[in-house]
């Protein structure tokens, strides 16, 4: 046995260090399906408690929608449970190709390739299409999976200040000697909930002959008039060269993702992207579920419209109550508390009130920017939001933070 006491001690010490720093993550066990109302066992061993979920990526409320569940069952019956193969050996079914075609149409691109997750799509795409003669220029707040993808690619990389178009332009000017430039951003930023300035970015990319990459994980299905994403919202459908997105959030919430964009780029991924080549195909049951989600979204905008109304109510309610929010108009509504302990205490008190909303703090968000990230869903009805708002106000009063500015909250609790 090579796992010595010394090795065990090394890991025990490291884990204790994480605990002492207050950064130890604990799972909370959910005993129900994912929806606005969930049953949670927390802390572990405690009786199960019914709470309102205010922090799921279930933006359209489709994670356990009966139509999606039914379609998944049908997929299970007709195409089986698993494929026991990667895509290019014997893991491609007719429904995988159907889903790729449907996503291409939905996103308004030229072609699409499925990946086991959007994490994998982001991890694989840059390495597949870039060389050491190229440069990747990314927003400083892009998702961790993009950062991992950038690290794996041989191209040079640089960053620009979050959504700062002047800074981006100066970076583009610096790298005109490179063979190719790729500007990389999230469509909706996952921690702050703000939208990328894609119209301006598309113009800059044209001006400086750069490709535009957008991760639409927190926008596919609900941002834009018909829910196609941030590119629809910004009026630049067809001008984004590479889109990645997930099926693990609004589009059914199970798993899987894709790269969608220029035909040659998608083909390069099919030939060279390692997470595509060396990881299993998406399970037929998931493919069938996502196909049903796309059917639903193509027929009606009812769910994204309800999400918009819910988001407006929630954001206005919190602002009127005197909370400090991050500005934006996505269903990600961060309630700013600045101090890590305060964020954890507020989250705990909200749970007592029947509201499930988790605190985020460094290193997930920058130091001194701790928050409760609330996420609104079309699965929420008005009574959910009213109850959640009442609970936020009650807890906000307890900590005397209502109507207080950022500096006043920091003065009381530190940052």
């Amino acid at each position, binding site marked *: 046995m090579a796992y010595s006491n010394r090795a065990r001690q090394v890991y025990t010490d490291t884990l204790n260090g994480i605990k002492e720093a207050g950064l130890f993550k604990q799972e909370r066990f959910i005993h129900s399906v994912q929806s606005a109302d969930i049953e949670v066992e927390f802390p572990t061993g405690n009786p199960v408690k019914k709470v309102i979920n205010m922090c799921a990526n279930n933006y359209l409320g489709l994670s356990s929608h009966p139509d999606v569940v039914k379609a998944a069952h049908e997929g299970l019956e007709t195409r089986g449970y698993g494929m026991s193969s990667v895509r290019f050996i014997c893991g491609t079914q007719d429904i995988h190709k159907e889903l790729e075609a449907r996503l291409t149409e939905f996103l308004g691109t030229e072609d699409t390739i499925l990946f086991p997750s959007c994490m994998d799509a982001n991890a694989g795409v840059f390495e597949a299409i870039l060389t050491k003669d190229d440069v990747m220029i990314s927003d*400083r707040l892009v998702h961790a999976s993009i950062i991992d993808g*950038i690290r794996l690619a041989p191209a040079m990389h640089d*960053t620009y*200040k*979050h959504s700062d178009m002047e800074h981006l332009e100066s*970076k583009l000017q610096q790298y005109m000697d490179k063979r190719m430039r790729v500007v990389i951003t999230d469509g909706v930023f996952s921690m702050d909930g703000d939208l990328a300035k894609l119209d301006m970015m598309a113009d800059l990319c044209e001006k400086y002959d750069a490709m535009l990459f957008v991760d639409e994980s927190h926008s596919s299905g609900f941002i834009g008039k018909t829910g196609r994403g941030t590119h629809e919202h910004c009026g630049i459908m067809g001008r984004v060269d590479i889109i990645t997105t997930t099926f693990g959030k609004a589009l059914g919430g199970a798993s899987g993702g894709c790269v969608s964009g220029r035909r040659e780029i998608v083909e390069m991924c099919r030939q060279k992207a390692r997470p595509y080549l060396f990881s299993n195909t998406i399970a037929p049951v998931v493919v069938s579920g996502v196909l049903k989600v796309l059917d639903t979204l193509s027929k009606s905008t009812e769910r994204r419209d309800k999400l918009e109304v819910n988001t407006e109510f929630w954001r206005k309610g919190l602002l009127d109550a005197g909370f400090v929010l991050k500005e934006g108009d996505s269903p990600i509504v961060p309630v700013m508390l600045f101090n890590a302990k305060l964020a954890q205490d507020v989250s705990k008190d909200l749970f007592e009130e029947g509201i499930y909303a988790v605190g985020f703090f460094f290193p997930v968000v920058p*130091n001194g920017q701790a928050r409760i990230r609330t996420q609104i869903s079309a699965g929420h009805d008005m009574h959910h939001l009213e109850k959640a708002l009442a609970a936020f106000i009650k807890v906000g009063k307890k900590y005397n933070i209502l109507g207080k500015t950022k500096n006043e909250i920091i003065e009381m609790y530190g940052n």
Partner: protein
Amino acid sequence: MENMKDIVLKYVIAEYCEDDSEEITYDTPLISGGIVDSFSMVSLKRFLEVKYKIQIPDDEATPEAFDNVNSIVSLVEKFINK
């Protein structure tokens, strides 16, 4: 002539600070203090290499070496004097 510390400090403020309210001195912890993330450090490295016509090997461009203006200047001087 502007000294190296001030040049580096000025670059760090322009490149990494979102607003003017952040007070940065020669000793302010940049990376461990969350002002510069280790991923964005690359532009600082490139700036130093171009400005001072040096090459900083990746194994020397550590988050520790880049953690404040004083240590950055020490690192640059080491390569200028090589």
